[in-house]
């Protein structure tokens, strides 16, 4: 099943799904159930309650960009296993499985496209590939997207959806934070705008690096945007969590993002921003 149900618990991003899990096309908020084609037609948004189901990277690129305009870049960049990492299963095996299940070879896709005629560079993450975790390959792809945007003098649109750094690459995954930050600083120096779209979830190492450095940052409704997710905060501090802890709505209230934009309106919103920065 390629539209694998995505766990909202980022802390469990590598855990197999619990047995009682609902069908992926069943809305976790209101219980409405949809056929695949119904969900696709509604951009994976529940037409009953507005819940945003996860959207795959290629589907999102199709939605944002002018038909046929997307040209993928750095498609050959893939993960290695520098630590020979082995937990309950080898990292190499987890990677192969993720490739098979997602049809992607990494958790990010980059490339050139046009949006309403405006040329842009895109970097789009896909949470279904190992929880959107950032290892060396994701860091490299995002950095190359920055370089490509600089080279062509076009804005970068970065869509994030990630549980954080990819533990299986150890310290090298942590180094993707400063790596992508340095790439964004090169982008800033070249006066290239970066627009960030935070999808559910944008957490930990990705939030603590390039995702937070957009010139303009929008988020999808209900997206979890937190450095530390609710479960870990709860367990470590025993604090009582507010109902909307870490959600896009709380982040807007506290001033961390510019706007919450429902998926159906994102293309128009991006187009308007592209006109302003043109």
């Amino acid at each position, binding site marked *: 099943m390629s539209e694998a149900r995505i766990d909202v618990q980022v802390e469990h991003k590598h855990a197999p799904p619990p047995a009682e899990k609902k069908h992926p096309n069943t809305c976790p908020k209101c219980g409405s159930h949809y056929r695949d084609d119904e969900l696709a037609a509604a951009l994976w948004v529940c037409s009953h309650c507005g819940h945003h189901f996860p959207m795959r990277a290629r589907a999102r690129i199709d939605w944002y960009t002018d038909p046929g305009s997307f040209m993928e870049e750095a498609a050959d960049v893939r993960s290695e296993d520098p*630590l020979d990492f082995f937990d309950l299963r080898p990292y190499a095996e987890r990677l192969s499985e993720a490739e098979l299940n997602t049809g992607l070879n990494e958790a990010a896709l980059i490339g050139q496209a046009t949006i309403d005629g405006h040329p842009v560079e895109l970097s789009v993450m896909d949470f279904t590939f190992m929880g959107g975790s950032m290892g060396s390959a994701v860091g*490299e792809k995002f950095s190359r997207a920055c370089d490509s945007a600089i080279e062509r003098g076009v804005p970068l649109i970065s869509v994030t959806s990630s549980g954080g750094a990819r*533990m299986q690459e150890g310290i090298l995954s942590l180094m993707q934070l400063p790596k992508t930050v340095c790439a964004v600083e090169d982008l800033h120096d070249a006066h290239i705008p970066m627009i960030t779209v935070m999808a559910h979830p944008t957490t930990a190492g990705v939030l603590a690096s390039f995702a937070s450095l957009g010139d303009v940052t929008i988020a999808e409704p209900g997206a979890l945007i937190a450095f530390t997710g609710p479960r870990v905060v709860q367990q470590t501090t025993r604090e009582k969590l507010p109902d909307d802890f870490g959600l896009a709505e709380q982040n807007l209230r506290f001033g961390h993002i510019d706007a919450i934009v429902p998926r159906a309106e994102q293309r128009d919103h991006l187009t308007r921003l592209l006109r302003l920065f043109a």
Partner: protein
Amino acid sequence: MTEKDQELNLRQRLSGLSRLPLLRGVRVNGESERLERQLERLQADTSDEAIWRSVELARHADRPYTMDYVERFIDDWVELHGDRGRADDGALVTGLGKLDGRTVALIGHQKGRDVKERLDRQFGMAYPEGYHKAMRVMEIAERFGFPVISLIDTPGAYPGVAAEQHGQGGAIARSQAEMARLTVPTVACIIGEGGSGGAVAIAVSDRVLMQEHAIYSVITPEGCAAILWRDAGEAKKAAAAFKPDALHCLELGVIDGIVAEPEGGAQNDHDEAARLLRTALVENLEELEDTPGEELRRRRRAKFRGMGVFA
């Protein structure tokens, strides 16, 4: 691997080490006997046990903290408090002082020595306010041309409701961005725990060093074990798998050098640990000080942008 392969592997590793800017404090002071001992220890140091020993020593309750080093080798120390917005974060101290005659800006995590101080300083886990304070001091350094010294010793950034509401992720990102913009020399040393985003937030430096028994990692061994092994008790296995020790960080190109510690670990002799650290910091600063600021920044970004292993 056969025994022969293993020996060859170790030999290669050692010959590689002698070429690297390793064990500066030792080499500079010509203590060849100690150097030999260090190399011997490093040679034996491929075992999971040795990695776990570093995890324990990095967190040792008697290990010197940032302020122990400040007392020992920073003259005219003036601590600068507060982020000018919300608070003064005790988990991260900042200030100005003289190191070997030059004014430096120093940023360091600070754990507490007794229960009360530990609570006051949140066990060295900074809030966003700590990183805002660090950025403020980096700005002063940039304006006046002071080198920035970072001493890193944190289990990670503070994981709490208020920390999230005050923008922990964004603060860590922006602190790194600020470091990527500096045109002054920057040297960081991990002096204990280099825990994840909370550590790298102040470690985007021209030179990143690690003390011999420090650890640098993307997650705590317990956290990794809880997620991947579903059992925090498997921390030892997790540490062996993700290899947070100084030697592996050096091999992976993540750090630029290892700073020797006194026999048995820094906790045994704070004065000697400080002497070795001071020597390494000064030597690295001296190597950077003749390079124009723009060039420092260009090289720094190129260094970090080159990190990672992919096909």
